[in-house]
């Protein structure tokens, strides 16, 4: 079965394929090629380090979308225990793009919600490739409210290209479903921890992303618009996505510098799939430590800080550096000044 590779990974894969071939050499000749094998292994290691330690934003986007990358369901199994799935929004349906329920995180009882993309083709279709309809956000909303009433911290996982852009989704109030979640989360009486584990696709991601602490996997991206969409709007060419990705500052390292997220979970060279257990353990301990801290804080204080963090998100100037007097003076009714300006 052909293994998926991102474009920029090809050189590595080619060398690895060569190595596999070499290793299949009959044992009679093993001594001859022993040095070749060692050499090749070193080359591969060097190439990996070179490739993966200075990933461009676009390369990270490709890794974030990598089909072998662990999905929410993997994190669920790797980090939580006794997951008890809850279905339905009590209104219209059970959206499988969002999986949610109760679970234990260490000894903490929590509500866990995440977008699931699915692995096999059948699963992907069932989970709608991780793109929720309003029903999915409304299911999440219901679980957030349950969490608030029963004092269960909320642990959210984000990995979605975005809210599903379909006709029924629009008709059933996709915008409203998202805004309602933003509102519920902003006012929730329990700690909220959100982690972007792959794709953080705009509003559809933010609907699970209003939190007391936001983490990102090292290679995840979080963007107001997909690079392709951005490229189309700016240059009329979706293929300029690489350039758009660079402009958008959508990578974890950029976002933590801008103080828009709280921390980054490291990934092994090449992406989380290369050592899932380590990644799960890392994230788990980060979440646990964070819960230890946040559950000590009084809920009113917690919410006050959450509010302040939200209010601090934004960059602007109090003074206008461009003198645009006409419009404003007209507002104030300085008719004389306008006549003279004319």
């Amino acid at each position, binding site marked *: 079965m052909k293994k998926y590779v991102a474009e920029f990974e090809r050189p590595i894969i080619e060398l690895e394929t060569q190595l596999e071939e070499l290793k299949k050499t009959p044992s009679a000749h093993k001594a001859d090629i022993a040095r070749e094998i060692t050499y090749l292994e070193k080359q591969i290691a060097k190439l990996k380090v070179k490739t993966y330690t200075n990933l461009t934003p676009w390369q990270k986007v490709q890794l974030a979308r990598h089909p072998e990358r662990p999905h929410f369901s993997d994190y669920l199994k790797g980090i939580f225990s006794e997951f008890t799935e809850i279905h339905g929004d009590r209104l219209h349906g059970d959206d499988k793009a969002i999986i949610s329920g109760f679970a234990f995180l260490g000894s903490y009882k929590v509500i866990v919600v995440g977008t699931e993309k699915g692995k096999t083709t059948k699963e992907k279709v069932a989970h709608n490739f991780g793109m929720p309809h309003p029903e999915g956000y409304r299911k999440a909303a219901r679980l957030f409210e349950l969490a608030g009433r029963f004092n269960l911290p909320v642990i959210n996982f984000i990995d979605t290209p975005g809210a599903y852009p379909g*006709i029924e989704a629009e008709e059933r109030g996709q915008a409203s479903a998202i805004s309602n979640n933003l509102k519920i989360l902003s006012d929730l009486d329990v700690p909220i921890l959100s982690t972007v584990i792959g794709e953080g696709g*705009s509003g559809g991601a933010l609907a699970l992303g209003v939190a007391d602490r936001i983490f990102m996997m090292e290679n995840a991206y979080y963007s107001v618009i997909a690079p392709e969409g951005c490229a189309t709007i700016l240059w009329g060419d979706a293929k300029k996505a690489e350039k758009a990705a660079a402009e958008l500052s959508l990578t974890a390292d950029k976002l933590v510098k801008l103080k828009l997220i709280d921390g980054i979970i490291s990934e092994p060279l090449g992406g989380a799939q290369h050592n899932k257990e380590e990644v799960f353990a890392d994230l788990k301990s980060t979440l646990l430590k964070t819960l230890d801290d946040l559950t000590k804080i009084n809920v009113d204080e917690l919410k006050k800080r959450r509010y302040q963090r939200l209010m601090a998100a934004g960059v602007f100037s109090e003074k206008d550096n461009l003198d645009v007097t006409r419009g404003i003076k007209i507002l104030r009714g300085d008719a004389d000044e306008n006549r003279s300006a004319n």
Partner: protein
Amino acid sequence: MSISEWFKREDRSSIKSKDKRAVPEGIWSQCASCKSTIFQNELFATDFVCPNCSHHYQLSALQRIDLLIDKDTFNETAKDVSSKDPLKFEATKKYKESIDKAKRSTGLKEAIITGKGSLYGRPVAIGIMDFRFIGGSMGSVVGEKIVRLINMAIDESLPVVIVTASGGARMQEGIFSLMQMAKTTAAIDRLQKENLPYVCILTNPTTGGVMASFATLADIIIAEPKALIGFTGPKVIEQTIKQKVPKEFQSSEKMLEHGQIDMVVERKNLKSTIGQVLDFLSPAEVVYEKIRS
């Protein structure tokens, strides 16, 4: 300066656009919807609604203030808050240049004007977006000004009216723009916990991050007729589902049918309807004398 002179000035300063929503120029013009000929004066008298087919042309923020707020009662707040360029975003031009250009073309500082004014004598906190300013897109400044508007409303126990016209979140500010969705929503939540009324007027177009945050949280949502209203734009939907979208499926009328908005109201009735709604949502003893237009 006479009103028609102001109109002409406004017109010269507006971005020249083939957009059928932009107010047409010249003494005579052809309606973008019904193609009938209309006098400039006629258009002015109807607040820029085609007298023949009711096509609602876009209004600038200042024109909208004239429409909804009693004469000489508007006081602008947060008037100097301006955008910066936190990501050093550069496409065909630098973000900073786009902002400066928009400021010069529109005479505005940003895509929203906020302030306090009277609506049929009732004091309101009002925010009006302007589509001409980088597509009415929401960046840090729009978010901040909305929050300040809400804070003022809470301090002074005022109802809030917001008029939207937006293509969504402003790309050039990346995640900062996305965060404005959460920021404005959190402020709306505080407003609503005070049981202060919040009415939102959706005008053409209102989409994306604005629709998916403060716009859809209003107590009462009113749309102008045939406005484009939705989350994802029709082109992106078509690319995703690989079919054409149904005719007018993201229109005010369709959204009303699908239960997503409270009312569709023609421009000429907008001020009185907002006044009426605020009458109902205000404390029992407060009913302002309505001056019917």
